[in-house]
């Protein structure tokens, strides 16, 4: 066997492996939380200095437009089709002197609500952890935006597709161990990237060392996310949008709601039938055929 075929075999094997993980992730949520080859990103707001280098690195890597003034420090920016990551100043409602810079992007939920509602499966949760929108497939319905608890996927009115952070899946750590562009760009190591279980440990270690009151966003929110954020205090006090501490848009919930609707529809059909049978006249119809019920 020569080298080339060996390589191909190896790639096939990796593909197979990835497929198995994809199956595990999509098919069994319990397994998905436990696997060890998934990556995670950690943002430590207590370290961030608000330089916004992550923003410009992201824009450079993903070829996004730079809007005027938005990279100026302390300027409030919103996520958009061209802004996949934003850094904003937030103050603690209970202690106004406490201010942080919040690095905010897609949270890469373990069971993403956005992927669950996309009608054409344009969004996939990769086995590595990334939640990626396939922009060649997206039909531009914006349903994912509605479903996302953090309102992350934003519609690009020019390209007519929805776009968001993909955790730099195209710098795939598996192949060349490159970190996401934003993580690479951070000058003070407020951002880190690594295996999910290590990232969780690291986050826990940091808040354990520091004084109490710190909070890790993403351990429980939206059923757990592959991006974690260390906050100095509870997210509510910082005025952040908080997702419930459970899987958002759980399939059982969807089933329940759809089921209720179908029950309603059967009741309606029953009412129609009752209305008809109570008031139907015993005659022949238009076509000269006897009525079905009366014959």
């Amino acid at each position, binding site marked *: 066997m020569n080298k080339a075929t060996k390589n191909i075999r190896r790639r096939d094997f990796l593909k197979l492996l990835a497929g198995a993980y994809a199956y595990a992730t999509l098919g069994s949520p319990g397994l998905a939380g436990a696997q060890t080859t998934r990556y995670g990103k950690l943002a430590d707001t207590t370290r961030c200095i608000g330089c916004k280098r992550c923003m410009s690195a992201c824009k450079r890597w993903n070829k996004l437009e730079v809007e005027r003034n938005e990279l100026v420090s302390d300027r409030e920016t919103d996520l958009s089709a061209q802004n996949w990551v934003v850094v904003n100043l937030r103050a603690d409602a209970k202690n106004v002197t406490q201010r942080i810079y919040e690095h905010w992007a897609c949270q890469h939920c373990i069971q993403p609500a956005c992927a669950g509602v996309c009608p054409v499966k344009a969004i996939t949760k990769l086995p590595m952890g990334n939640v990626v929108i396939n922009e060649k497939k997206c039909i531009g319905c914006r349903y994912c935006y509605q*479903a996302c608890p953090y309102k992350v996927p934003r519609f690009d009115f020019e390209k007519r597709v929805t776009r968001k952070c993909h955790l730099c899946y195209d710098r795939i750590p598996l192949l060349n161990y490159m970190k996401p562009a934003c993580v690479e760009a951070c000058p003070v190591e407020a951002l880190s990237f690594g295996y999910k279980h290590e990232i969780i440990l690291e986050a826990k270690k940091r808040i354990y060392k520091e004084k109490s009151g710190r909070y890790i966003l993403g351990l429980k929110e939206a059923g757990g996310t592959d991006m974690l954020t260390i906050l100095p205090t509870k997210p509510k006090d910082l005025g952040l949008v908080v997702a419930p501490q459970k899987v958002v848009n759980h399939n059982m919930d969807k089933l*329940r709601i*759809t089921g209720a*609707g179908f029950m309603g529809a059967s009741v309606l059909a029953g009412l129609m039938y009752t209305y008809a049978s109570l008031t139907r006249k015993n005659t022949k119809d238009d076509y000269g055929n006897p009525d079905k019920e009366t014959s």
Partner: protein
Amino acid sequence: MATRTKKHLDIIFNRIERTQSFYVWVSILVAVSGLALYAILMSLIYSLEIFEFSAQVIWATMVSNYVFLVVSSTGLCIVTSLGHVFGMQRYELIGRRGVFLALITIIFGMISIGAHLGHPERAMIFNLLTPNFLSAMWWMGTLYSFYIVFIAIEYWLLARPELIERSDQAQGPEKIIYGIMAFRQLDRLKIGPVLKNHKLLQFIGAAALISGLSAHNTLGALFGHIEARPLWHGSYYPIYFLLSASFCGYALLLAVSIASYKIKKEEIPEDYQSLIFEMAQVLALLLSAGLLFTAYKMGFGLFTPEKVKPIMLFLKGPFSQAFWLFEIAIGTVLPIPILLWATKQKNIIGVLIASVMVLVGVYVMRYDFVVAAQVYPVIKNGLPSYLPAFMEVLFIGGVLGALFLTYVLGEKFLPLKEEHHH
């Protein structure tokens, strides 16, 4: 036979007589539809953003217009099914007009949502190639596609006897055109007698009703599934949508058919008049049920912490005028006594007015339902205005104009009237 021939001659005579006003109507409607085309063209040249009054309210008028139209279509399907599916003879009168309206409302609804999508062409391809069975939107698109097919066949079956009759009576090109529309050749085949069998119509009607109700259900579920939008989330809307489809169907059918007779200054057939008053009563009943549902929604919403804020938008906030004046007063409460009074007095105009009021209320309701839900959780301090953008209005006006134009043409050239055929 002689009277029928005379009637037919009358219709033809009428047509010639009214040509002028007909052309005025058609040209106005064509102009209005032209505006929609202009708006679409601009969106292609510049950006889809011209259809959004705020990038944060990402579903706005086109979605609500879509919801209005497809819900009306389901409603019309429900009302007409009473006739040829559930076997209520008197409802068979409205079969053709109702089913034709159901067909064109769903088609223009689809046009409305098609223009809203970023890539409608991909929607058709990937809906087939990579379906997501967990997405209500996938189910909705798929089921409505079936529904359109069934409802189109249903109309064709309903209209066929008269199309054949017209082709028999007409001369020259008209004879050929009606003959083709009725597929007269089929009569010579084995399928001919089957097509005339009422059972087939009943079967297709039932298929349309089932696909329509299921599609409608997934439309409600599409909103109901969204946990991140407290106003939509839950099983209330899938169920309420069924009810509101029913009253919307009744109101639309009453309004359109009565207005058609009145504008053409034609006499409404005796048996249809009595059905109108029966339908008016049913409509009043459905509206009362709707009122109870709304009261339940608002009342219980106030006890659900995450729903309080969105609900207050209706009760006191920027949507309060639309809610209290349009949804509650004009759309639900006032029409009930008007309908009951009109039924008692045998006043057709009263029924017409009440039905139009219901439609206006429902239209506003759909808009509020879609837009208000998107305020929470992201738009923290509210937007200065929740009114649609100019281009949206142009587009929606154009879609409704084109819908109306299709109806006027259908009314002129296709069998829609409330008459029995033997």
